[in-house]
């Protein structure tokens, strides 16, 4: 394979703090060299980035459907696929089946419990050997405290990461919206933020008890962020993420029973949304994930309570994350870190950084370019996004995975 030089790029690498104009050269699927003084290769191809940002390919720690074209269009080169598939990813054979390296990397998460039933520990050791990157029951919480304890204990032998859907199901029962004035006015069964806090705090005790590694998939409320902050102060092996819609939308998005804004956990009130922004800004929240969950019309054109939660996330993750930068709250490196270096660190990946020898997984994007999200232009097979028509800044221009261009916009 010949070398490719990406010239005239703003090289942005949160892992090293690099932010400078220069050239990056890839060869044989790896980054060969990069920097302001790097000379373009003589024998290879040259890509003129036109001053755009060149960052590590995005790493998404939570998605529910392996729509690789959609992911590539969103600048994502590595996506963790939740085990709630059909059939469930709860054995080594299914892990091998779902593990993909092309066109982008799909890393299957193994089921934490057999059949996602929350009762029996799944084959964590065998699935780890097969390439499962973490273990979770996906959309459901591991509710039973003893099961969670044993999971965290058992996973230690394999240094496996347990990811939790942070919601106490016995308190969230039948709820479809965040509890508060809006849900009351709309007459929807609601879930209090306490369901999130209680589960997170319970799990913090279990992490303390077992010494296991734990990641809260999506944190969405001020109280849970406070609990997470406390857990980190206590040096527990806990990290957390949030999805883009928890800082870019609040519960008002479901007004008029808009099922496209139905999410699990539910959208919360404005104070919680601001807390999520603050949690990202101060580093309490480690990663931003897409929670990409495409749903067709049959699942969404239903009364709100019956509609499936979830939204297309791959293609909106980057521009929504960049809102945190454009709004002035976070510096650019910190924003990008949440979708590259930090998830790579938590997952133990080689990618997520611009460094000689690292995989040539790259995203090149126009940082400031204003545009409107248009679901009709999505690569995603479904169009269920509450962000249709939203004006945003920052757009993917080119996505490179293992040295190959897997997405390119012609303009």
């Amino acid at each position, binding site marked *: 394979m010949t070398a490719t030089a990406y010239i005239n790029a703003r090289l942005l690498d949160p892992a090293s703090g690099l932010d400078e104009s220069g050239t990056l050269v890839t060869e044989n699927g790896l980054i060969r060299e990069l920097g302001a003084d790097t000379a373009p290769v003589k024998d290879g191809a040259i890509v003129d980035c036109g001053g755009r940002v060149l960052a590590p390919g995005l790493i998404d720690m939570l998605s529910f459907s392996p729509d690789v074209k959609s992911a590539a269009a969103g600048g994502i080169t590595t996506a963790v696929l939740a085990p709630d598939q059909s059939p469930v990813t709860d054995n080594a054979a299914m892990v091998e089946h779902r593990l993909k390296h092309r066109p982008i990397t799909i890393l299957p998460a193994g089921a934490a419990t057999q059949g996602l039933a929350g009762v*029996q*520990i*799944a084959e964590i050791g*065998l699935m780890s050997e097969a390439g499962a990157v973490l273990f979770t029951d996906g959309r459901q919480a591991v509710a039973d405290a003893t099961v969670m304890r*044993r999971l965290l*204990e*058992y996973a230690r032998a394999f240094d496996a990461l347990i990811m939790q859907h942070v919601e106490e199901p016995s308190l969230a029962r039948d709820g479809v919206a965040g509890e508060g004035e809006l849900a009351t006015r709309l007459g929807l069964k609601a879930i209090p933020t306490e369901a999130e806090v209680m589960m997170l705090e319970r799990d913090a005790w279990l992490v303390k008890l077992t010494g296991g590694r734990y990641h809260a998939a999506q944190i969405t409320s001020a109280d849970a962020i406070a609990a997470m902050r406390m857990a980190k102060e206590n040096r527990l092996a806990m990290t957390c993420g949030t999805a883009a819609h928890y800082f870019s939308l609040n519960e008002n998005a479901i007004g008029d029973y808009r099922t496209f804004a139905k999410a699990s956990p539910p959208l919360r009130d404005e104070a919680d949304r601001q807390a999520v922004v603050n949690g990202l800004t101060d580093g309490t929240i480690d990663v931003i994930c897409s929670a990409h969950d495409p749903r067709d019309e049959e699942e969404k054109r239903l009364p709100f309570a019956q509609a499936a939660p979830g939204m297309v996330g791959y293609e909106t993750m980057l521009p929504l994350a960049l809102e945190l930068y454009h709004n002035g709250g976070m510096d650019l490196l910190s924003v990008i870190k949440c979708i590259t270096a930090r998830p790579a660190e938590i997952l133990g990946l080689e990618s997520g950084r611009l460094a000689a020898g690292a995989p040539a997984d790259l995203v090149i994007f126009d940082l400031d370019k204003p545009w409107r999200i248009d679901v009709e232009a999505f690569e995603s097979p479904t169009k269920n996004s509450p962000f249709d028509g939203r004006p945003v800044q920052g757009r993917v221009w080119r996505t490179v995975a293992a040295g190959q261009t897997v997405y390119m916009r012609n303009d």
Partner: protein
Amino acid sequence: MTKESKQTSGYPRARISPPSGEAFPYRHILGIEGLDPSEIQYVLDRAMAYADGEKGNARLRGLTQINLFFENSTRTQMSFEIAGKRLGADVVNLATSSSSIKKGETIFDTAMTLNAMRPDILVVRHGDAGAVKLLSEKVDCAVINAGDGQHEHPTQALLDALTIIRRRGRLHGQIVAICGDISHSRVGRSNIRLLSALGARVRVVAPPTLLPRDIDRMGVEVFWHMQDGLKDADVVMMLRLQNERMQGAFVPSTKEYYHFFGLTPEKLTVAKPDVLIMHPGPMNRGVEIATSVADDLDRSAIQEQVGNGVAVRMACLDILTRHLQGSTA
């Protein structure tokens, strides 16, 4: 440390002053905990003699031994029965399934009833930790613990020690890896106590879910991986993993357990070449141990353990009835 101070600080233990001034001054054998190395050695020395073929001269003739098993057992009960009979005792087995225990009698009432029949020695197994000790406080005769819950199984530990000594010549300094379900194992606990007391280096190897909390405080090295725990081991002692514990509550599946913790020839390559393989039985072939390992003629001592079990139980019955022997003949 004197015996008296030991009684106040540790495990309360009925003591007698044996008329013959024997080196084992206890009325019961309820556990390994609290026994001095010299006392353990004394039992092992007697057992060694029986294992070498000493007949015992019907020492227990005229004495009554009752085997009271609240929990099902085939091997241990039979081993005690044969041991008693070889020594000439009248052995009675009380099957709890057909007895008044099934009709709701408390352990106290059972003890009082049996006591009234004036046995000379009681061999008791019970599913609850501490139950045998409780029973021993209510009877006038000697009691041998044949297993109480997840607490102790002293004769198993003694027979394991005897097996190691007979094969390897000594216990001191031997690296013994106890592998498998440590959490639920009385065999494991008794062995940890005995082997440590006699100077062996004891390791436990198990997934974290099968290791009880603070097990390292019992003086063992803890390992989660067979390749680490078996390295340079002189003895590998496998524990039985009960079926119901392999279905996801503690271990995901039989398949996964065998893959990571089953004793196979490949995993044994890191142990000493002449490593001794032991298992208290009954074995789950293909779960905790490969058939080729279990049946390895050179390295497996599993059949010898059964034979040594009878010798150890003869020694225990003998020692605890010294003051009665000959008086009723």
